[in-house]
C-alpha cells in the first residue's frame, strides 16, 4: 500500500494541485474581470473531481515463460505485492499442463486517486514441451472480457459504470538470449497484437552488457517490423502530430524496454534503492543507466495509462463488437440458455 502523504516527492512529478473553481463568495462589488470571463475551463476541474470520486480500473496481463521475473516486475511497478511470486516448482506443485489464467485484484490508492488494479497471470505459457497454440486460452480470456462488456452494454437496465475487466495492457516477456526472438514469441505476438495492446519487454536485462542490449533491441525491433507485429503504441492510432512525435521516439528508440525487477532494497550512496546485489556491484532498478525499468513505469503508468484504456475501448473492443454484430446479422448477442438464467427464455 502506498503512502499518499509524500507531497515533497510528488510535487516534482505531479502537476500543481487542482485549483478550486473561481466562484465569488458573497455579494461584493463588481469585479472587472468578471465582465469577460465565462468560466468554461472549470469543466476540467468538474471532470477531475468526478473521476477522482469514481476511481479507475486497470487490468494488466503478463505473459512469458516461468522464471522471467514477471511477478517481481509487476510488484515493482506497483510498489506492492500485487502478484504472487512462484518460488519455482517444488515437488508438490506441478507445472500446469495447460496455460492457466489467474486474475488477482487489488485496490491501491495514491494522491487521492483510487485504482482497482487487476493483474492477470498466465502460468504455464511456453513451459510445455509442445507449446503449439498455447496462446489460445489467453486469446479466449481476452475475448471473453469483451463479450462480458458487450452483454452489459446491450442490457436493458445497464449499470451506470460497466465493470471493466477487459485487458488494457499485455506485457510480453522476451527472454534475454541476446540472439533474436523465439518462434513462440512471434506466434504469440502475431495473434494477440490484433486483440490487445502488447508491450514487449526484455526480461532479466541484467544479463546483457550495454552493447549487447542495444544490438538485441535493434534486432528485436527489426524482427517485429518484418513480421508485421504492431505493438503498443500502434502507429495507426497516433491521434495527432504531437502523439506521433512522442510515440515515434518510444517505438524506434526505447522499446522494447529492457527491464530488471526487484523487491529488495539496498543502501547506495546514502539512499535506499530497489536493486539486485551481485558480487560485482548493485544493480539499481530505477537507475536509467542500469536498466529501463523507470522508462517502462513512466510509460505505462504516468503517461500512457489512460491511452492504453482508450485504445482498448475504442479500437480493440469496437473491433470485437463490430465482428459480433456482423456475425449475428446486425443483432446484439442474445443470452444462451443456461441453467442459471433459464427464466430469461427468449
Amino acid at each position: 500500500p502506498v503512502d499518499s502523504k509524500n507531497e515533497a516527492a510528488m510535487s516534482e512529478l505531479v502537476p500543481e494541485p487542482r485549483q478550486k473553481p473561481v466562484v465569488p463568495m458573497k455579494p461584493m462589488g463588481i469585479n472587472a474581470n468578471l465582465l469577460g470571463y465565462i468560466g468554461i475551463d472549470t469543466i476540467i476541474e468538474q471532470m477531475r473531481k468526478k473521476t477522482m470520486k469514481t476511481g479507475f480500473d486497470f487490468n494488466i496481463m503478463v505473459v512469458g515463460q516461468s522464471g522471467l521475473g514477471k511477478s517481481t516486475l509487476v510488484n515493482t511497478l506497483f510498489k506492492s505485492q500485487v502478484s504472487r511470486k512462484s518460488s519455482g516448482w517444488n515437488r508438490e506443485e506441478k507445472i500446469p499442463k495447460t496455460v492457466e489464467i489467474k486474475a488477482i485484484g487489488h485496490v491501491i490508492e495514491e494522491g487521492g486517486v483510487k485504482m482497482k488494479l487487476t493483474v492477470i497471470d498466465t502460468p504455464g505459457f511456453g513451459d510445455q514441451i509442445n507449446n503449439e497454440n498455447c496462446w489460445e486460452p489467453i486469446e479466449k480470456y481476452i475475448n471473453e472480457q469483451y463479450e462480458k462488456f458487450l452483454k452489459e452494454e446491450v442490457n436493458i437496465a445497464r449499470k451506470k459504470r460497466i465493470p471493466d475487466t477487459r485487458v488494457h495492457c499485455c506485457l510480453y516477456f522476451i527472454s534475454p538470449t541476446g540472439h533474436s526472438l523465439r518462434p513462440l514469441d512471434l506466434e504469440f505476438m502475431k495473434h494477440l497484437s490484433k486483440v490487445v495492446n502488447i508491450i514487449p519487454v526484455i526480461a532479466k536485462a541484467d544479463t546483457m552488457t550495454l552493447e549487447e542490449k542495444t544490438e538485441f533491441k535493434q534486432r528485436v525491433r527489426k524482427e517485429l517490423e518484418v513480421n508485421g507485429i504492431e505493438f503498443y503504441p500502434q502507429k495507426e492510432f497516433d491521434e495527432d502530430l504531437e502523439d506521433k512525435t512522442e510515440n515515434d521516439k518510444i517505438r524506434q528508440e526505447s522499446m522494447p524496454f529492457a527491464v530488471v525487477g526487484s523487491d529488495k532494497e539496498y543502501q547506495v550512496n546514502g539512499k535506499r534503492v530497489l536493486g539486485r546485489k551481485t558480487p560485482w556491484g548493485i544493480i539499481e532498478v530505477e537507475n536509467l543507466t542500469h536498466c529501463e525499468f523507470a522508462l517502462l513505469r513512466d510509460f505505462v503508468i504516468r503517461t500512457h495509462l489512460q491511452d492504453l484504456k482508450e485504445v482498448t475501448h475504442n479500437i480493440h473492443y469496437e473491433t470485437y463488437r463490430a465482428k459480433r454484430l456482423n456475425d449475428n446479422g446486425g443483432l446484439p448477442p442474445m443470452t444462451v440458455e443456461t441453467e442459471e438464467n433459464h427464466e430469461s427464455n427468449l
Partner: protein
Amino acid sequence: DHEKQYVGFATLPNQVHRKSVKKGFDFTLMVAGESGLGKSTLVNSLFLTDLYKDRKLLNAEERINQTVEIVKHTVDIEEKGVKLKLTIVDTPGFGDAVNNTECWKPITDYIDQQFEQYFRDESGLNRKNIQDNRVHCCLYFISPFGHGLRPVDVEFMKALHEKVNIVPLIAKADCLIPSEIRKLKERIREEIDKFGIKVYQFPECDSDEDEEFKQQDRELKESAPFAVIGSNTVVEAKGQRVRGRLYPWGIVEVENQAHCDFVKLRNMLIRTHMHDLKDVTCDVHYENYRAQCIQQMTSKLTQDNRIESPIPILPLPTPDTETEKLIKMKDEE
C-alpha cells in the same frame, strides 16, 4: 527517500483531462418560455455572445398562426485553451398562441428525436464519431408577473421533467422587489412540490469539501428557482463599467448578487454543474428513454428487468462509406 512509495498513477486524472482538452467539450442548452421574457438576452449574457443578431421579432398578428419552432444556434467558445461547442436550442412560439394546448409537443418530440438518434448511433457498427445532440439542460422561464406557476408552466414541466434536466427561472426579476421575489420563490417551490414536478436536483456536496464550498452549495439550493436579469449593455455604475440596465431610479447590475441570481445561475450552469448536468442526461434521462424504447420493441413483458430480451434492433442506417470499409476489412480478416 520517499520515491520508494510513489508509483505515479495519481497523474491519471491529468492524462484523462489532457485528452479531453484536446477533444473539446460540447453542451446543449434549451431555453423555453413565452416570448418577451428575456431568454435571448439571458443566453447572450451567460455566454458573452450575440447569438441573435439577425433576429426579426414578429408582431402579434404575425404570430397568430405561428406554431412552436425549434431553432438551433451553435457557437464555439474557447477559454484558457478549453474548447466548448455550445448549442442553444430555442423554442420560439411556445406559449404565444391563443390556444396553447400541447404546445410542448414539438419540444418533447425534439428531445426524443435526439435520444433516438443517439440510440441508433450507439447501437450501430461505426461508433467512432458519434455526435451527442442530446439536450443537457432546459432553462424554463417563468413570468414574474403572475402569482406563481401558470397552468402552461405546470403542464410543460410535467411533460418534460423525465426527459431533460429542468432548471426553472424567474425571468425579468428586476420588476420585483426583494420581498416579492421571496414570496414568489416560496410559492413556486410549493407548487413544484404539489404538482410532483421533478426539476433538476443539485447533487449532495461531498463530505470532504471545505466549509466555503459547502456554504456556497447551501446558498445555491436555497436560492432556487433563480430570479434572473440579463443584459448585454454595459453601463457605468459607481465609477465602474458593469453589465446592467439603466433606470431613472438606479442601475440594475446583472452580476451583483444582491440584485439578482444571475451569477448563481452562471456558476451553477457553467462552473460547477455542467458536467453533472451532462451525466444526469446520460445516466438517467437517456437510459430511461432507451429502456422504454427497448421495452416497447419487445412485445413480451419481462419480470426481472436485468434479463436480456431479444432486441430486434432498430434497422441500422444505411452504412456510410467508412462503415462499409470497416465491414469489408473485418470480412477480409
